[in-house]
C-alpha cells in the first residue's frame, strides 16, 4: 500500500519537475480557430476555449500546483516546530507570550482573514502562501508544544539536562527526533490543506495570472466548459484529489510506522 502511495507521489514529483518537457504540445500555444474541443487523438484531454492542449497544461501546471503547497508545508512545519519546541522546552515568559499570541491567532476566523488579506494584497500566490503559512502555524505550534512538554518530563530528557547539555542540543538532538511522527504528518497535512485552499483561492479569482497553467486555475477557468469539454476542468480536480488523498494517507502510514519505530 505504502509502495503505491510513494509511487503516486514520486510520479507527481517527477511530473512537477519535468512536466513541461513531457508535454506533447506547447502549453501556451493557442489555436483560436479550434477553440474548445473534446478529447481527440491530437489532444487526449481536449482543448480549452483558447484551443490550448489540456493535457499539456496539466503537465506543465503540476509544477506550480505542487510547489506552492510544498512551500506552505515547509514554512509552516519549520516555523511551528521550532517555536513549539522553544515554548515547550524553555517555558517561562517565552512560552507565556507565545501561547497568548497563539490563542489569539487561533481565535481568528481564518478564512475571513485569508480572504481579506489576499483580496486586498492581491497578485500572485506569494501572499496567499505567506498568509496560509501564518494561518496554519499556530495550531501546529500548540501541538508541538504540548508534545514537547510531555517529552521534556521523560527520564531521557531530564538525563540530558543533568548532563549539562546545551538547550539547543537537548531540543533538537534529543526531543525533536521523538516528535518526528507528528512533525512529518503535520507537514503532509498542511501540504494537503494548502493544495486544496490554493485551488479554492484560484476559484475565487485570487492568485495566479490568467493563462498560467495551474490546476486550481484550470478548474476555475474551464468550469464553464463543462458541457463542451468536461475534462478541461474535471481532470485537474481529479489530480488535486488524487495527490491530496495519497499525501494524507502517506502521512497516516508514516505516523504509525515512525511512532512504532523511533519512539516507544
Amino acid at each position: 500500500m505504502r509502495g503505491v502511495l510513494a509511487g503516486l507521489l514520486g510520479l507527481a514529483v517527477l511530473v512537477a519537475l519535468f512536466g513541461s518537457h513531457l508535454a506533447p504540445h506547447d502549453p501556451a500555444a493557442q489555436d483560436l480557430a479550434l477553440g474548445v474541443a473534446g478529447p481527440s487523438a491530437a489532444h487526449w484531454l481536449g482543448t480549452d476555449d483558447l484551443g490550448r492542449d489540456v493535457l499539456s497544461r496539466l503537465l506543465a501546471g503540476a509544477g506550480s500546483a505542487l510547489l506552492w503547497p510544498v512551500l506552505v508545508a515547509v514554512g509552516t512545519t519549520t516555523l511551528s516546530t521550532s517555536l513549539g519546541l522553544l515554548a515547550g522546552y524553555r517555558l517561562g515568559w517565552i512560552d507565556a507570550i507565545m501561547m497568548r499570541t497563539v490563542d489569539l491567532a487561533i481565535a481568528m476566523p481564518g478564512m475571513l482573514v485569508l480572504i481579506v488579506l489576499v483580496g486586498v494584497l492581491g497578485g500572485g500566490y506569494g501572499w496567499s502562501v505567506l498568509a496560509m503559512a501564518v494561518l496554519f502555524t499556530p495550531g501546529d505550534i500548540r501541538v508541538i508544544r504540548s508534545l514537547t512538554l510531555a517529552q521534556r518530563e521523560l527520564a531521557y530528557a531530564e538525563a540530558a539536562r543533568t548532563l549539562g547539555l546545551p538547550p539547543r542540543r537537548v531540543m533538537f538532538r534529543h526531543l525533536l527526533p521523538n516528535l518526528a511522527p507528528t512533525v512529518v504528518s503535520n507537514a503532509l497535512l498542511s501540504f494537503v490543506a494548502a493544495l486544496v485552499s490554493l485551488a479554492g483561492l484560484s476559484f475565487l479569482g485570487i492568485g495566479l495570472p490568467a493563462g498560467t497553467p495551474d490546476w486550481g486555475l484550470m478548474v476555475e477557468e474551464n468550469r464553464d466548459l463543462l458541457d463542451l469539454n468536461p475534462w478541461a476542468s474535471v481532470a485537474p480536480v481529479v489530480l488535486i484529489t488524487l495527490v491530496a488523498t495519497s499525501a494524507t494517507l502517506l502521512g497516516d502510514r508514516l505516523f504509525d510506522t515512525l511512532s512504532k519505530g523511533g519512539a516507544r
Partner: protein
Amino acid sequence: MKTPTIRAAVVALLLLPVAACAGSPQKGGSGPERDTLVWASSAAPNSLDIAHGFNNASTTIQLAVLDTMVTLDAKGTPAPALATSWTQPTPDSYEFTLRKAVTFTDGSPLTADDAAYSLSRHLDPAVASQAASYFTTVKKVEAVGTDRVRVTLTRPNTAFLSVAAIAWQVVPRKLAEAHPGDLGSPEVGTIGTGPFKVAKFSLTSGTVLERNESYWGPKPALRRVEIKAISDAETLRMAVRSGEVDATDGLNARDARKWTGLSGVTTSFYPGNNIAYLALAVGNGPLKDVHVRRAIAHAVDREALTTLMTGGHGTIARTVLPMPQMTALYGDNMPKFPDYSFDLAAAKAELAKSAYPDGFTMAVPYASGSDGATVMQAVAADLAKIGIRLTMEPSPGDKYMATLMDHRGLGVQYVNLSYGTPEPVEVLPDMISRAAAEPQGFNFSGYGSAELDARLDALAGATGQERQDQVTALLTEIGEQVPYVPLFHMDNGIALRDGFTATGLSVWNPNFFAVIRPAGK
C-alpha cells in the same frame, strides 16, 4: 476503491427525504397564466436612483419604474415621454411641456417642480451623483408655471436630449430632497410614474416589480417581475436551463455557443452600444512612436479576436465609436477611415521605421479572470510574432480598476465601454480630451491637445452635416495617430425560456420588461 460507493450512499441517504418535496424547482413562472417573469441579472442592482446606481443591473430596473422626460425611438432620435413636447428657444436652452394628469404610484400628482428638481439634484455635490458628468453643461433648471420646465445650458449641447433620455429620471421632490444620499437604497426605495412599481427591493433576496395599473402609457404585458442576481455566469446559465429563471440579459456574447445549445431557451442578440479597444499610452516609452503604434495595429489579428470574444455575435471595430452611434450618425454612407489590416509584414515594416526595429518588452497590467485577461493573452501572442513582448501583470479586478483610474503604469490597456446615447460627444471627449487624461478620466492613451479640446467643444454644439464632418475628421486623426486600436463591437443578448417572447428589442430602449411578453399575448 470503495469511495464512490460510499459517497453515493451518503449523498443518497441525505437526498431521499427531501428529493420528494423537491418536486418541481420551477417557481414563479409556473403559475396558470404566465404573466410573471423571473428575471436574472448577473449583478445585483445596488440602487434604484441613477445618481448612485448608474450601472446595467440598476438602470434596467430604474427605467421600468421611473419615467424620463424624453426617450429615444428605435432610430435613436429623442421622442416624447413625460414631456409631451419641447421647444428650443435659444441654442442653449430647452423648454419642456409636461404630460397632464400623471401621478406617482403613491398617488401624488407629478408637478413641474418635481421634474425640475429631478434634474437639478444631479448638480448638487451633496448628492454626489454618478450622472453629474452628463449634465456639466446644465446651468439652470426651473419650473415655469405648473406644466413647463425650462433648462438653460452654459453652451449649446446637442447631446443634451439624448442624455436626458437616460439620466433625467423623474422622482417626487419631497422624497429626493429628504434623501440626497440614500434615495433608491433598499431602505428608502423610490417612487416613480413608470409602467412598474417596486413591490420589494432587497440586495439579498432580489427585487419584485408589479405592474403600475394606473400607468399613463400602454400597459406592460407582464403583471409581475421577480429579479434575481446571480453573479456566477455558469450558475446563471444552469438556472435558466433548469427553468428556475425565465429570462436574463446576463449572457456574454462570447458564451453564445453555450446558450444557443440550451433546449427550451431562445437567445436573441442585437447590436450593443459598446466599443472594445486597446488604449496605447502615447506618453509611454516605445508607444510614443507612432510607427510602433501602427505596427501594433497591424499585428493584432482582430478577426480571430472578434470571433473569440463575441462568438460570432459581434463585428470587427474600424473606429473607436460604438456601431450604433456610427449608424445613427452616418446611416448607410459610412466614410472610409484609415484601417490596419492584419498583416505581419506591414507590421514589421512599420516597426522597422521606428526606433525599435527589433521590438521591445513592456509590462501589461490586467484584471485577472476578466475578458481583459483573455484578450491580452491573445494580443500578447500576436505581438510576440513581431518581437514586442508583453509581460502579463495580473491583479484582482478592483485593484486593477483602481490603478487604471489613477492612470498609473499605463501601457497597452484593453478597454471595453458601453454607452447610453447615440451621441459621439458622449464618447469622444472620454478618449481624446485632456480633462479625461487626468485621474478618474477615461482617456487612457493620454492623447490630446488644446486644439483638440477646442474641436471637441465645437463638436458639442455642432449639428447636421457640420457635426458629421467634424466627427469624421476626429476619427480620421485618431485613425492615423493610433492612440487607440479599435478591436470589436459586442452584441448584447438576452435569453428567454419558451413561453415568453420579446419584440422590438433595441439598443436605445433597454426597458426589457416593457418588450418582454408572455407568448401568445
